[in-house]
């Protein structure tokens, strides 16, 4: 539906880092971290000069200030697209905050925040959506508060998928009159 790749070349021809390269070295200046090493918060960062093309996954929070194209999968973790961040990718995570530019679909298991500096074109599936004044958004937001309620009642239920909202569901059931 949306032309997600229209801006993919606008950052010039700097060499791109593959997702595998990135996963092995998210902090170029930091020493490798083992699972047992504790930090006050496990959070990786993709710097503003870094460009990544491919599938990106991880088990820690991530901040993107650079450019990512492909897929981002961070189940149970928080993704922040910084103000300088430019993401042309579908994103799955627990909490996703968009301060920069995203072209793609977002699935946030807990919530999605589009901040005042955020610009997004795509579809969002999340039980809780926050949009700040000044944010630019074009697309669909699929919200289902029951998903949150069922979590609090210890019945884990993911957000309703876009596909589940079919054309045949919408009419006839939604409105009392007509």
């Amino acid at each position, binding site marked *: *539906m949306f032309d997600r790749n229209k801006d993919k070349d606008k950052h010039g021809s700097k060499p791109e880092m593959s997702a595998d390269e990135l996963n092995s070295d998210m902090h170029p200046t930091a020493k490798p971290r083992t699972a047992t090493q504790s930090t006050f918060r496990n959070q990786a960062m993709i710097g503003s000069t870094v460009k990544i093309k491919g599938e990106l996954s991880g088990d820690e929070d991530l901040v993107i200030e650079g450019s990512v194209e492909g897929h981002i999968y961070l189940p149970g973790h928080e993704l922040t697209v910084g103000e300088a961040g430019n993401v042309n990718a579908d994103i799955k995570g627990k909490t996703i905050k968009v301060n920069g530019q995203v072209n793609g679909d977002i699935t946030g298991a807990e919530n999605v925040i589009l901040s005042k500096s955020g610009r997004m074109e795509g579809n969002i599936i999340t039980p809780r959506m*926050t949009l700040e004044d000044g944010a630019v958004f074009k697309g669909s937001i699929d*919200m289902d*508060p029951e998903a949150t309620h069922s979590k609090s009642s210890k019945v884990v239920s993911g957000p309703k998928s*876009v596909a589940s909202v079919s054309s*045949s569901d*919408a*009419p006839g059931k*939604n409105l009392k009159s007509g």
Partner: protein
Amino acid sequence: MQNTANLADDLLASANASSVHTQPTRLLTELFENVDREASLCVLNIGPAKPETVAFFGEYRCKLHITDLNQELPLPGAADANSEAQEAANLLSSLSAALALPEGVRFDIVFFWEVLNFLSTDTISALAQILRPHLHAGSWGHCLAVRGAQSPPPTEYCALADEGNLRIYPRRIFPPDFQPHSQSVLISRLEHFELVRTVLMRDQRLELLLKVSDSLTGATQHS
């Protein structure tokens, strides 16, 4: 047709003087009295994405599609046409691309807000044509219109605050062509929609509540 570019500076000054505020609306109350909060809801908002609108529909089991047509104006393509048929085809194509409606979805409510005041009658007809497969018998529509053909461009724009209130914002960006249409012209061009009620707002604009006719051919009927 009235070119709003020449009026923009004067209007901007008055628009900036006003501030964001809330205004009651009886028509939205009437609309949402007919909406089942427990059922899933599919809404099209042809206007800016605003925080209170998203928060309001977050209380529903809702799929909210947002596309700000104001930002897409003027629509490209019509000037390149060699014939009326080509112009109509270009218009449909560019409008469809601007709206980017999700396939297979039928909307229960369509909020046009003020955008119809900035579209030609042909464009409004094209919009109705594009919307048709996305409507069902009983779908609701809501729009704002000017009181008369000599009315000035609105210096404010509205968003949904809650089921009984509009949030009014000062308009800082004016789409290129202000084209005030009478209520009867709007209704005639918004094919499939019938007028339910009109209310005169404090700023002399008209608030229109519309409903898709039960006779909409091929539409799913409400039970």
